[in-house]
């Protein structure tokens, strides 16, 4: 059984602040971990993924995420947020095969205040 937990439903920061959005997962087997962003009224957009290798992966718009096997975590970070980063962020796991379903966490709503 795949489960994904995002402990913070809401995070509010000011523009220019750093932010970390937390994701923990449980899954037996070889997996992909990924992050998606959903702006209001839109579908999800892929940010980044991890499968193996360097545990820190870079994504679009200055986002990065770090995989930790010991903590079963894949937290998303950004050093300096912009108001346009306000959105809902979803962490997801999927099996290591083409076309595998994504299992999402509950999402974290990030609000960036000017």
């Amino acid at each position, binding site marked *: 059984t795949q489960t994904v937990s995002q402990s913070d439903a809401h995070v509010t920061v000011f523009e220019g602040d750093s932010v970390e959005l937390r994701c923990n997962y449980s899954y037996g087997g070889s997996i992909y971990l990924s992050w998606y962003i959903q702006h209001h009224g839109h579908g999800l957009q892929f940010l980044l993924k991890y499968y193996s290798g360097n545990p820190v992966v870079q994504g679009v718009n200055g986002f990065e995420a770090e995989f930790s096997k010991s903590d079963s975590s894949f937290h998303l970070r950004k050093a300096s947020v912009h108001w346009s980063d306000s959105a809902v962020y979803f962490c997801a796991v999927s099996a290591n095969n083409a076309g*595998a379903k994504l299992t999402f966490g509950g999402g974290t709503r990030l609000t960036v205040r000017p």
Partner: protein
Amino acid sequence: GPKVLQIPSHQIIDMGQMVTLNCDPVSNHLYFYWYKQILGQQMEFLVNFYNGKVMEKSKLFKDQFSVERPDGSYFTLKIQPTALEDSAVYFCASSLDGPEVFFGKGTRLTVV
């Protein structure tokens, strides 16, 4: 970038009627998906589809649900008959192979 188009963006349907949600996936993609999102809640997998066949379906994919992609055109989700609890936003998605999945903007289905 590549886009998944969903038509219509909103649909209101009487309970018990049939509804078909249409999706135009990214042209060279091979895998297709439907997800369901109820307001304020998480994204739930419904079904994935490859080479004309369902790969996997979740418990949310009730017997009243069906998917098809006739002649490589639209990828459709049909619900017949609809129930009140089917009200949600339905997202179509497609991918070429790996976990980078492209999502449409969703169709908001309201069953009244």
